[in-house]
């Protein structure tokens, strides 16, 4: 079998076939013999070249969470779309910054009005979640184009809250 996994910005090709009691695996062309045994749900004992490691693999849709040696690696099967494991707080498309809620929470303050000119770093909206406030600010100098939320409103993660037109392409 051949799998493609994306980890961060990098894409990796993994081919796997059964071999004796274990597997012959090639990661980006580097071959290795892998002996993998399930020890409890989600947990595996991995022995390769005499080196033993315990590994946890959890599937969440097309995503794989793998923990090995105390480190967590997030893989997106089939290359995925965009970045893996990073929260997109704001995006800048054609000079327009869309400010999104970084997590589910409540809008506690809208610091500007539509049409306001703002400096880089100026707080646009403040979102509160888990008892802490998170100010979201302008990525560059510009003008507030749209505000999509109201003070006191509950918002979901990634919900657009405001748009700022950044001068000179940010």
């Amino acid at each position, binding site marked *: *079998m051949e*799998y493609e*996994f994306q*980890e961060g910005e990098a894409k990796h090709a*993994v*081919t*796997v*076939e*059964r071999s004796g009691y*274990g*597997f012959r*695996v090639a*990661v980006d062309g580097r071959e290795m013999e*892998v002996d*993998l045994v*399930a020890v409890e*749900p*989600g*947990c*595996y004992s*991995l022995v*390769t070249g005499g080196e033993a*490691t315990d*590994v*946890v*693999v*959890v*599937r*969440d*849709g097309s995503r*794989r*969470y*793998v*923990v*090995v*040696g*105390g*480190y*967590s*690696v997030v*893989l997106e099967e089939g290359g995925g779309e965009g970045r893996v494991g*990073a*929260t997109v*707080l704001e995006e800048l498309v054609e000079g327009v910054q869309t400010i999104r809620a*970084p*997590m*589910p*929470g409540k809008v*506690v*303050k809208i610091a500007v009005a539509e049409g306001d000119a703002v400096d880089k770093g100026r*707080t646009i909206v*403040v979102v*509160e*979640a*888990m*008892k*802490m*406030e*998170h*100010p979201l600010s302008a990525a560059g100098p510009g003008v507030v184009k749209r505000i999509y939320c109201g003070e006191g409103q509950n918002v979901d993660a990634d919900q657009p809250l405001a748009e700022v037109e950044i001068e000179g392409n940010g």
Partner: protein
Amino acid sequence: MFKKILIANRGEIACRVIRACRELGVRAAAVYSEADRAALHVARADEAYCIGPPPPLESYLNIEKIIGTAKAARAEAIHPGYGFLAENASFADACAAAGLAFIGPTGDTLRLSGDKLGARRAVAAAGIPIIPGMSAGAGEFDGVLAEAEKLAYPVIVKAAGGGGGKGMRIVCGEGELAECLEAARREAMGAFGDDTVYLEKYLERPRHVEFQILADNYGNVVHLFERECSIQRRHQKIVEESPSPALGEKLRKKMGQAAVAVARAVGYTNAGTIEFMLDEDKNFYFLEVNARVQVEHPVTEMVTGVDIVKTQLAIAAGEELRFAQKDVSRRGHALECRVYAEDAAANFLPSAGKILFLREPMGPGVRLDGGIYGGYDVPVHYDPILAKLVTWGGSREEARRRMAEAMREYIVIGIKTTIPFLRDVINHPAFVAGETNTAFVADHFDGWREEVPEALVEKALAAAGAAELAAGPAKPYVDADRAAAPTPWRTVGPWETGRGG
């Protein structure tokens, strides 16, 4: 001792209090909001009562509802945990008026210590050094501005009504003052229901050293030595230890005596903490009284062998302290790391959601105070603390290595936690050397990202591929969509013994 108490809290601290109750043979009644029906403390308790909708003001901060629930359940006392109503004087008064013992100091002591400004005045009057700053709440902007200039920037805006890093802002110059004041007032209002704030001189690289106090209702006050809690983010502690690497026996004795004097000055009873700042020249200044059991209390329990939570119940039940200062000794070194549902690589942004997989560490000298389980959905409404990992060792280095190993074993999948960050903190050369101060995170971990060793990425890819093939298309391994579905342990049916051959 009480027969039954009500615990007006949730999460890991509610679970901790339940443990103490069980050891003492006291029935533990839990309360929960509608968002917390599936929370661990509800499952662990002897009794559980829903007290309202998810927002704290309508549930965990609803004094009338909590007292009514305690009376209806025939509880004799209320343990408030930390946060929520723990340092609320009106709540302590309301408990007393309803004939319930409040497991903490009296309403009057809470009023004095909870009013950070009043506490500053009382402590200064007792001859203990305080940090330069305002002795009354901030009023009109111009007055605050003049005060800030007098203290000289940087200054810190603090909420008079509470701690825990909430309603707190560092101000480095005049231009930031207005916005910081406003944000601190708003956060203070939300967290404590009081928007009084004041200014203090901001000490730039102090150590945070605090003393645990136990005081009974008969005038006996002892301290259980110090904890150093210098490693902080957002002015909130994330790593704590005892003893402090900075204290020699002479200074320890002097600060311990000062802590007991502060406790007496505010008429303290039950368990509490006297916080100090220690500057680079080892001058100490009173910071504040934390009139509650603290998040980091296990550190002290590990080195002194005193169970602070059980002692809290005993004191509230009217028992006398069973030991004097000379009987308190300490042994070895303990470390605590706070595990929060936060993304340390994204400015400690909270990370609520479902825990797809959980493995908690064990081993010699390892203690875990947790409030979560695999499959638990971490709600957005409350403080993001998930658990506290504590290790004990004969030396600081032994405790530190145990911590590093325990964190390697500690696996939480599905939400971001501070575990990878904390692992890098305790392995940092400055931490290893005991060079800790409150600027530690800013100085050494600005822009931190988890860096996974290349060799482990390759292993992860190999394991993911092999696990995929091993599982086959029809039978996936642990699948998030089925995280709540029965595990083989449940579907296999009960084990049967004594039958057949």
